[in-house]
């Protein structure tokens, strides 16, 4: 890369006003222009006052005669239904989706009644994952479930097996906020006991309910601590307005008094509303996006790629502080490609080597045999030459011998001739 890598960031002091302190305002402006969305799921048996609570929370008739709530519909199996409403306040527009689960826990056999809920949540994650994974991405609507209010029946004793089962199966998919419904059926002491028991059981079963984040602000932390001590929140909801002490309040009228919804001494409704809507709505969305969705996504993608050790190591859910590095499937393929290229190179080199070696061997052998043959040929030649020489010598000797003998013979012949001539002469003499 042609760029020099940056060193770690250095602190610089500004000698005058620059203006980026205005960034938060810019962010504010843009967010208002975009608008907000929030999906809230309510789960619990029929008759626990879920719809009433929603209406109380949002000060509206979400469920009205034209749009009847789930309680007015009788279901045989667990359904998951959503209603979308657009509400506006102080220039801020909110698209609110309320997801209801009518029929939950109402059957005689409630095994798997949580399955439709899980399926719904997963399908919303899947939609988001798919739209995030498109090549052509547009504005992605966020329909993921940001918060699940789980209604616990005010038995006063403890959690029901269904409660535990449900929360255990969903605590890693969605932010669960357990609520004690119809809290006006318990005295404060009974309520305290009940809450303690529930928290004990939640800890015992290692259920992870939504946790309020720590902040740097001391004051805020004190408030957060106070809320934590009152978990799970015991709530009361009401659609009716009653006049109490010349004040119009939402409440439930009993012969013995009025249980006020927004009275902190009567129930924890205000705490819930403040926490859910006024202070932690954004955090609920962030946790859904950064933790629950990422969990879903990494599990889903890990199933696609056949990465061995890495993904199998971390099959469990990620916590907020998990920083282990996974690899994108594309990067994985790249790495595999690189590995393969290296492997091929190595293989090629090895094959080359073996090839060269074998060739060398063969050539050497050929050379050797050539030399051998040459040698033998030389040898034979020498042999022949030696024989030639010998023969020559013999011939020479023979010639010599022959010559000398022939010479001898000639002398003898001469002698013979001489003697015979003499004889002849004598013979002739004698005749006379």
């Amino acid at each position: 890369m042609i760029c020099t890598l940056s060193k770690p960031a250095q602190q610089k002091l500004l000698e005058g006003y620059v203006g980026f302190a205005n960034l938060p305002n810019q962010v504010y402006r843009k967010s208002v222009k975009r608008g907000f969305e929030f999906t809230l799921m309510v789960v619990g048996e029929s008759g626990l006052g879920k719809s009433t609570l929603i209406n109380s929370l949002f000060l509206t008739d979400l469920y009205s005669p034209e749009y009847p709530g789930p309680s007015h519909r009788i279901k045989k199996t667990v359904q998951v239904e959503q209603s979308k409403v657009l509400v506006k306040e102080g220039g801020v527009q909110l698209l609110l989706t309320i997801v209801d689960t009518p029929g939950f826990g109402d059957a005689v056999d409630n095994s798997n009644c949580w399955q439709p809920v899980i399926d719904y949540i997963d399908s919303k994650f899947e939609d988001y994952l798919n739209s995030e994974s498109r090549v052509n991405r547009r504005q992605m609507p966020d329909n993921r479930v940001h918060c699940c209010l789980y209604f616990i029946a005010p038995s006063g004793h403890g959690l029901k097996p269904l409660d535990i089962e449900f929360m255990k199966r969903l605590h890693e998919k969605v932010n669960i906020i357990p609520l004690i419904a119809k809290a006006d059926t318990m005295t404060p002491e009974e309520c305290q006991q009940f809450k303690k028991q529930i928290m004990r059981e939640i800890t015992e079963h290692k259920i992870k309910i939504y946790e309020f984040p720590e902040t740097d602000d001391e004051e805020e932390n004190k408030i957060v601590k106070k809320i934590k001590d009152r978990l799970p929140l015991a709530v009361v909801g009401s659609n009716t307005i009653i006049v109490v002490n010349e004040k119009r309040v939402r409440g439930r009228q009993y012969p013995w008094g009025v249980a006020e919804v927004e009275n902190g001494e009567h129930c924890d409704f205000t705490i819930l509303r403040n926490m859910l809507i006024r202070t932690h709505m954004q955090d609920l969305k962030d946790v859904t996006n950064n933790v629950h969705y990422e969990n879903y996504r990494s599990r889903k993608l890990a199933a696609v790629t056949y990465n061995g050790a890495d993904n199998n190591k971390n099959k469990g859910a990620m916590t907020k502080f998990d920083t282990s590095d996974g690899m994108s499937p594309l990067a994985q393929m790249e790495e595999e490609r690189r590995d393969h290229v290296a492997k091929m190179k190595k293989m090629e080199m090895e094959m080359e080597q073996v090839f060269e070696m074998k060739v060398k061997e063969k050539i050497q052998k050929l050379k050797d045999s050539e030399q051998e043959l040459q040698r033998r040929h030389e040898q034979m030649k020498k042999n022949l030459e030696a024989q030639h020489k010998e023969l020559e010598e013999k011939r020479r000797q023979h010639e010599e011998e022959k010559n000398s003998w022939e010479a001898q013979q000639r002398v003898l012949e001469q002698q013979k001739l001489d003697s015979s001539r003499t004889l002849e002469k004598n013979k002739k003499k004698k005749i006379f």
Partner: protein
Amino acid sequence: MAATEIARQAGEGARAVPLAGHVGFDSMPDQLVNKSVNHGFCFNILCVGETGLGKSTLMDTLFNTKFEGEPTQHNQPGVQLKSNTYELQESNVRLKLTVVNTVGFGDQINKEDSYKSIVEFIDTQFEAYLQEELKIKRTLHSYHDTRIHACLYFIAPTGHSLKSLDLVTMKKLDSKVNIIPIIAKSDAISKSELTKFKIKITSELVSNGVQIYQFPTDDETVAEINSTMNGHLPFAVVGSTEEVKIGNKMVKARQYPWGTVQVENENHCDFVKLREMLIRVNMEDLREQTHTRHYELYRRCKLEEMGFKDTDPDCKPFSLQETYEAKRNEFMGELQKKEEEMRQMFVQRVKEKEAELKEAEKELHEKFDRLKKLHQDEKKKLEDKKKSLDDELNGFKQKKTAAELLQSQAQQAGGSTTLKRDKERKN
């Protein structure tokens, strides 16, 4: 209030309901802002321009601080990008600012490839983000975004028109980054020349199809000021970190014998406009445009290049899984094929070499067969010679023997004849 994007998206699916009281979700923007402030902001500026146009000085002036760096020489062999990251804080807002400088831009004799390293740098940042986004386990929330949010393109104050290098570079960059062209060292141009210069530059940009960044006019709160500012582009700026006393204030200025150019005087130059637009009003929009437009374009091109595509352009979401699987199978198949090819090639070579060697061997044997034959001939000749010599020897021997026999016979006869004669004589 105008419909929000969310409302438009929801369309018919949602009904508007009135609220009977104060619910409290109007604090959502504040909640969001608080989180952003806690998390800190990040902004990356790229300064492109020839050496000596005052890029570093302008950065120092804009951010009221002294950043790194010594002035560069003109003898760089190629264009390099140097990036530095700084942590700045103003009231409770923390900003991680990265300033990237092009070193050696415009200094070479052949400037054909000058833009390449810049484009490569920008793409590398996009690639890094894309890789992070595609990871199985990713931490986008805490990822340090290095993508370039704004590119300040420094135009030399010639007063005439854009250089061809400028046009070429800006054309290559306009689909990758938000370009904000500025006229550097504009205190060298008179006011009338400046107006003409700006008009010329704008018309050249338009006629060459260069898309520079337009300040957004869709948000009523800032629409007016943004559209006015759009008309002042390109900004003619002067940078200075030196202070001069004007009246009873110390202001940033450049002092000449004929007067003092005050950086923050809007009559003298557009520095204040630049600062307003870049930092105070549109910083967030620049980041957003980078993410939703330039980065998406890069991502789309990259994925298409790799063979991904949406199964259905509009409705059906494409299954990431299936595509990955298909890609992967294809990929594995390719690898297998390559391996096979290489093996085959080797087998071929081996065969060829074997044939070669066999040929050589054959030749050798033939050679030696010939030699052998020669040798045989020689031997035969020798044999013949030997035989003839032996014959001769035998013949000679016979002759000798015969001659000797004759001689001895003759001697004997001669002896007997002499004897006879002697006998006769005696008689």
